């Protein structure tokens, strides 16, 4: 303002090498990417077939399904909420689309739109109940997980919807390049778009503000209700898309589509540095995180580890990744880390008091 106060200590022109290194390591994604490369190198060393063209293709195709949902889940987590019903929504949307194109003989494009509509609608319901009626997202979306499971059985009577129109099966088998399916193309495009939105747009910035502190966001004029509900709808619609891609891939509206995805999706994005507490994380991180989990699952198969160990590995990796991330944050932001640690401690102790 004027000369009354000392000059700012700003010195943006000459960051020392050390500072640059520190800020590089402090970037969220660097840790996961490094871990991913290490794991790939490890599996390749154990079994060179891990990096065979066929295996790479298989991993990428499988990743694309859950990856599409991970994009939505990352957006929703950034906005400060999360969704446990994604797997169910994928399943419901897929079987409803399948019924529409078979039992009701709708044209395929219309049936696909119908499936997406179902996903978006469930997202809307989740969003309204969580935001407007203030039911915690954990409860609401857990409930929706069960409701979705029930709906799948109701819609299909417990039997796969089969056969699907020929266009669908053809589409499921076709590839767009390097033997990768269209689901992979969609995944990549959606990830790039979403990453751009979060990084560079007003909408993205407002999402981070909403997840960081909804009251502050509201006070600066952001309509947090719309942002949160919009994020729920996005997750729902993307889950539906993923479910229908699997349906096309299997050439059948199977009742097991999407089952168990919710946990792998959340584990993946959290491994990628997306915060469960809202307001922090990137699409790049979330996508790399889920890729890492799939690489581990596939790698363990390729080097011939018993399948039960795969589950254990996923669990261990998630805890390790998040633990390392917390340590990294604490180290690179000493003051803030110490403060939150102290606050957490006070929190648990007070929790004991109130519980007594």
């Amino acid at each position, binding site marked *: 303002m004027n000369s009354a*106060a000392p000059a700012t200590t700003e010195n943006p022109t000459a960051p020392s090498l050390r500072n640059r290194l520190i800020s590089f390591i402090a970037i969220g994604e660097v840790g996961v990417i490094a871990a991913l490369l290490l794991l790939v190198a490890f599996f390749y060393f154990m079994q060179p077939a891990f990096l065979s063209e066929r295996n790479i293709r298989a991993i990428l195709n499988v990743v694309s399904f859950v990856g599409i949902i991970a994009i939505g889940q990352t957006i929703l987590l950034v906005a400060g909420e999360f969704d446990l019903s994604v797997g169910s929504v994928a399943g419901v949307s897929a079987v409803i689309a399948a019924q529409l194109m078979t039992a009701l003989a709708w044209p395929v494009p219309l049936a696909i739109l119908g499936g997406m509509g179902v996903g978006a609608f469930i997202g809307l319901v989740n969003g309204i109940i969580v935001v407007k009626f203030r039911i915690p997202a954990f409860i609401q979306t857990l409930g929706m997980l069960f409701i979705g499971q029930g709906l799948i059985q109701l819609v299909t009577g417990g039997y796969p919807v089969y056969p699907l129109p020929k266009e669908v099966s053809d589409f499921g088998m076709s590839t767009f390049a390097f033997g990768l399916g269209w689901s992979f193309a969609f995944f990549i495009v959606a990830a790039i778009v979403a990453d751009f939105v979060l990084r560079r747009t007003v909408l993205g910035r407002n999402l981070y503000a909403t997840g960081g502190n909804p009251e502050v966001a509201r006070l600066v004029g952001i309509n947090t209700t719309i942002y949160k509900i919009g994020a729920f709808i996005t997750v729902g619609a993307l889950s539906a898309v993923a479910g229908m891609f699997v349906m096309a891939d299997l050439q059948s509206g199977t009742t097991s589509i999407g089952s168990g995805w919710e946990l792998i999706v959340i584990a993946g994005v959290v491994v990628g540095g997306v915060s469960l507490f809202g307001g922090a994380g990137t699409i790049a991180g979330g996508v790399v995180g889920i890729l890492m989990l799939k690489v581990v699952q596939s790698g363990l198969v390729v080097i011939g580890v018993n399948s039960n160990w795969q589950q254990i590995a996923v669990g261990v990796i998630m805890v390790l990744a998040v633990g390392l991330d917390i340590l990294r944050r604490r180290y690179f932001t000493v003051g803030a880390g110490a403060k939150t640690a*102290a606050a957490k401690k006070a929190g648990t102790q007070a929790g004991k008091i109130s519980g007594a």
Partner: protein
Amino acid sequence: MDPIFSARGIVKAFAGVQALRGVDFNVLPGEIHALLGQNGAGKSTLVKILNGVHPAGSYSGEITLAGAGVSFASPAAARAAGVGYVPQEIEVLEQLSVAENVFAGHTGLGEGVLIYRHKLEDRTRAILDDLGLTIDPKAIVASLTSAQRHLVMIARALALRPRVLMLDEPTASLSGTEVEALLEVLRRLKRQGVTMIYITHRLPEVLEVCDRATVLRDGRVAAELGREEFEEERFIFAMSGQRLQKLFPTHEAPVGARPMLEVEHLNVAGKPGAIYGARDVSFSVASGEIVGLAGLLGSGRSEILHGIFGRVAAEGTVKVDGQPVAIRSPRDARDAGIALLTEDRKRDGLLFNLPVGANITIGNLDPLSARGMVRGDRERSAILEAMRQLNVKASSPQASVAHLSGGNQQKLLFARVLMRAPKVLLLDEPTKGVDAATRQEIYRLVVELADKGVALVVVSSELEEVLGLCDRCLTIADGRIVDAFKRGEGGEDRVLRAVAAAQAETVRAAS
């Protein structure tokens, strides 16, 4: 006399910032020792080191307590050694009661693991009584005002019966009478033999209760003064290296200017138990006028601002520039040209997940973007301009807001509300935690805005600020306007008398 608590050669650096550059600090037994300095001088950093928030090993230098070398690995270790600490920013457990907050983390309150609620509440009441407070120990902290929360934190530190108590800007959010009460408590603690380290930007408080003072400037000790050397000018010179001119810039209320903000019959429901709402409040602020709201803690001043801004549900009409506006949310208020600077920067102001720069531009991105995309170059230059204008001291726009000193956080929030060029600016404690030089800058800025035709409403717990800065003063008690007068028509006594009369009336009406 040997110091009871002393630090020698303390050096502390954060990534990119040298906060302390070799500080020697000596506190004598039984004294109240003022720790002074401009925003970012390193005061909070020093007490955090003395309290183990910055653990041993993260700084260099030595600390001795009662003659023995100590190195605290955590605040708990410092507490166990009898060092109490009240942090600058409010850290409370909102969903718990006052009593549970006061005793959070304590042991030995019951038998074994059981805790007796009534025992907790009785002991809390005793501490609060001692502080001269009427807060209900059973009240949930979420229902308290931010000043009351601060008092709860002080009670929490006192519950440990510390030997040395460190208070980081405890009065920043308190008003005249509460400050007096707190200073009285400090005097009483002093008689009981407690040694205190007291950080403040309000020099009259230092003159009133402190025995010695250490002044920091840019991480170094600029002066160590005994009581006989106390003089406001001397402090300011040591803090800033400059002499200060007149505190309040001259401002004349414009004559015959059109009303910019008109509030009619504003009613805001109070939160149960703790806060008065606003009751049938009507006033208007002309373009270029500065109106102050004076009153005690919890008298409803903030609620009036919140009601106008659409933060809480309110009845009544609000007109901006002659046009009635329907305000149902802060967004509507913003679109009508109203801006609000909130009081509690940690809870209602800062976004800790975004860096300094994005914190300034959040909510103001429309002019900095094209077709929904943020224009990096435009945003960056707007940020640098805002930081320069308000002299926000941060290592870069990418720095984390958690690492800014308290006063710089306040300046950052000021930069945010100014970015939209509002027609009506509502300021809730605009100089909370701001050093003397910056305070002057903020006053100058307020007057400059008024000269440009902005209508300003200032809520301040410092009566001096309301009386010196504002063209008109509205005295608020129990959510009503009980007195109104122009600059020069009254002083502090007039405000206090009006408040006392209103309180007497309330008591009479109740009985």
